[in-house]
């Protein structure tokens, strides 16, 4: 399946306002997790069964002594050939024909969570410890099948996130990477051929997040 929808996340425009992280919670009516500050602005510290979208913060010092601060608004990539589905026996995990969204159903409670997580190249699925159901980003399936764009994309003030038909998103991605390469030779679109949520980065993806480009 190559058509359907895609999301472009151009991290070169992201300001870490976290509108997307909150919008995801709001649309999906997910509770706020009780958190503490652990010495980072990144909070919650990780994805969870009640956090599908998380802005990861990563900082360091460049060769010229100047700091950098990278923001990586993480979510399920909605792979074209989802590895997580390989652990499913029946319809615990569904890949929607029309949109390409990869949906975890309540039946995921019967899946081997560890195996599912291991299969995922991006370390995305999480389990509700009580119900054992697995959870992650739905691509706002209930929105995109009702002529609305995903809540995270809708909330983005800077144009970091775009949603649309996959071929158009791929075009946008190519153009943007070519543009960025002038100033950032390492600019790249991550796993563009394999995933629907495509991240553009301007530096080594590992500097953004360990699994930004996959395990």
């Amino acid at each position: 399946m190559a058509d359907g929808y895609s999301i472009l996340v151009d991290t070169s425009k992201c300001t870490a306002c976290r509108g997307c992280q909150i919008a995801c919670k709001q649309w999906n009516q997910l509770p706020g997790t009780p958190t503490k500050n652990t010495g980072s602005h990144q909070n919650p510290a990780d994805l969870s069964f009640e956090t599908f979208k998380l802005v990861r913060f990563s900082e360091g010092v460049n060769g010229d002594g100047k700091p950098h601060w990278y923001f990586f608004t993480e979510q399920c990539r909605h792979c074209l050939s989802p590895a997580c589905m390989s652990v499913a026996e029946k319809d615990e995990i569904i890949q929607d024909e029309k949109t390409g969204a990869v949906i975890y159903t309540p039946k995921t409670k019967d899946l081997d969570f560890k195996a599912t997580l291991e299969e995922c190249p991006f370390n995305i699925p999480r389990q509700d410890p009580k119900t054992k159901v697995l959870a992650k980003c739905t691509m706002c399936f209930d929105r995109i099948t009702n002529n609305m764009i995903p809540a995270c994309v809708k909330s983005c003030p800077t144009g970091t996130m775009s949603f649309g038909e996959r071929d158009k998103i791929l075009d946008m991605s190519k153009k943007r990477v070519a543009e960025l390469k002038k100033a950032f030779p390492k600019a790249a679109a991550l796993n563009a051929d394999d995933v629907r949520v495509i991240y553009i980065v301007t530096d080594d993806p590992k500097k953004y997040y360990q699994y930004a480009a996959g395990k």
Partner: protein
Amino acid sequence: MTNHWIDIKNSDCVLVMGSNAAANHPISMKWVQKAKDNGGILISVDPRFTQTSARADIYAPLRSGTDIAFLGGMIKYIIDNNKYFPEYVLNYTNASVILGDKYDFSDGLFSGYNPNAKSYDKSTWAYKKDDKGLLARDESLQDPMCVLQMLKKHYSRYTPEKVSEITGTPVADLLKVYEAYSATGAKDKAGTILYAMGWTQHTVGVQNIRAMSIIQTLLGNMGIAGGGVNALRGESNVQGSTDQALLFHILPGYLGAPTASLATLEAFNKARTPKTVEAQSANWPQNIPKYSVSLLKSFWGDKATKENDFGYAWLPKLDDGQNCSWLNLFDQMYAGTIKGFFAWGQNPACSGANANKVRQALAKLDWLVNVNIFDNETGSFWKGPGMDPKSIKTEVFMLPCAASVEKEGSITNSGRWAQWRYKAVDPPGQAKPDGDIAVLLMNKVRDMYKSGGKSPEPVLNLKWDYVDAKGHFDPHRVAKEINGFFQADVKAGEKQYKKGDPVPGFALLQADGSTSCGNWIYCQSYNADGNNMARRKKDDPTGLGLFPQWAWCWPVNRRVIYNRASVDLEGQPWNPKRAILKWADGKWVGDVPDGPWPPMSDKKNGRLPFIMKPDGQAAIFGPGLNDGPFPEHYEPLECPVPKNAISAQFINPTIKIFGGEMDKHLTCDPRFPFVATTYRVTEHWQTGIMTRWQPWLIEAEPQMFVELSEELANLRGIKNGEKIKVSSVRGEVRAVAIVTTRFRPFKLGELTVHQIGMPWCFGWIVPKDGGESANLLTPNVGDPNTMIPESKAFMVNVTKA
């Protein structure tokens, strides 16, 4: 803002300094990004590498409180390298004006300083005038006493090396910023500045902005698309609230508040209305009597007559020299002079500088009315940390009010757009819109005055008809009142207006009582065309994002003020590709021009573009402020250096320092060796009282933190994520350490100075273990012009808790 949010996209160079726009004004970055997409450059100058810095093409660090040194160096760079825009500077600024013989500047002090009064005799800063009263000029700009030469002399001391020694910014970074920004002095280039509290909250706050204004006028960046001096306001309607005279020193529309010595309307108008003999100066403020009389007519309606000075005597008067700004109010409250206090939509127990003093002041009140949508540290101060409820006599009333979406009305954004909002839902329970609370309160006050009381006239004669049939506050009635009405049948030009008709625009306001207007700058907002603030048309004829029929903007829907400075003397745009205005076929096309007059080359009818200045020109030399006609670097009241590296004058010589037991400050003291600043985060609004109750937001920023460098953490043995203590001479807070590469120590010559930063959005009431406000640490010392507290540069210690 002289310009507006969307206009940022038209800029070739966006300087963000004194602001972390990405975090605090997220939507601004949409337009910054568009500017970048068009090839523009983003520069971030900040003590800390921020979210804005993360997106910037150039980042330069500077020590908090040294912006004037940084900008002074830029002024020197612009002059030395001929980067200024010569035609603009000559024609539209006071660069050619010659200063009087009494003007002087020596070792940090301007002429006319009186050390006992800690104030200047500003008459020594007056311009030289000829026998007709005209300003003396040298249009060759060579006279050593002309403004440009004086400017050059003043900033000749601000060499990159000297600046770097003060600011801690590496020389190479300074030059990179100076070069990139001063390139906007080209005729067809635009540079803009986005600033916020990082510039205002200093004892040199106003002069920080003055310094940038000088740069913007030198580079010809005022009045043009993609230019201007743009304050990013900290609340959605803070622009509207200042326009409507929330502050003590003004009446609506920035008319100066009356003082006791101005006993009559005539005296008031005379004192407030500037005069000029300059031939091409419009001197728009010459119309002030029309606005003041129309305002009085609005307050007191038919009771305001020519015979009774339109009720001028009923206006409350400040004592001459009296300053009723925030710090003084709380000082008076602490002293027991002020007995009652309405805390309306605010949380001073967390937002006020030196918040411990604020909290103690609240305990001295007889009564406190807390009007808010949630309980807060102010209303519940009596059960806060360190308080003994039994010993506090203050009676506290909580009035729940409607949130912004629970009421109808206008808000005015930073770009001066007044936008009408509908009510989405009813307020819950007994909560009422602020307008209803005000109406009920005033009704009660009027009832009480009806049975006696001192001086009842101002209250009982008030025109008080702002409710609907059901007795509820009617925002439409108020908005119409603000726009103004004809009070008599009037013929203006070809048109006949009847008594009761709305005034179409402020050009028709009169000083004879035939018009009323609640705020002259809002005249036109709600007239015969309807509620212009409610307009939502998306036409953009210039393609520059003016959207002239989206909402309404003051004054007279002019989207970029001083816009006649964007054209040459023939009325042709400096940059035809971004023509905000142009003179074509005998009329102005584009934005609403800054006045109807033809271009300047018409020596008889043409008018200078800076119409609010008596001489019509942008003031590179500005003799009106309390602390000098040119910005000069002084150290913050609390600073890490033993002396000012650029003069013998250590701190701003005109600041007021409170001397009470709670008013402590310490400078260059080994017990408090680190510079501190405060800021906000995206997730929390102001003191956090609207956001700390919200689980998704508190999840993202749950606790008070302090950001500090790895070097300082090593020095103090502090680990990332551990709770530490931050203290100043005024108080202490516990906070989680965020040890970061985004703060670096500053090298000031031989000296290494560390700086830390904290948010002020937390407070004890919620969440549990969320921490306290950084304002427990900040000093209650203010800028000598505005009295805004110096919350952005003060001294602290950090230790393991």
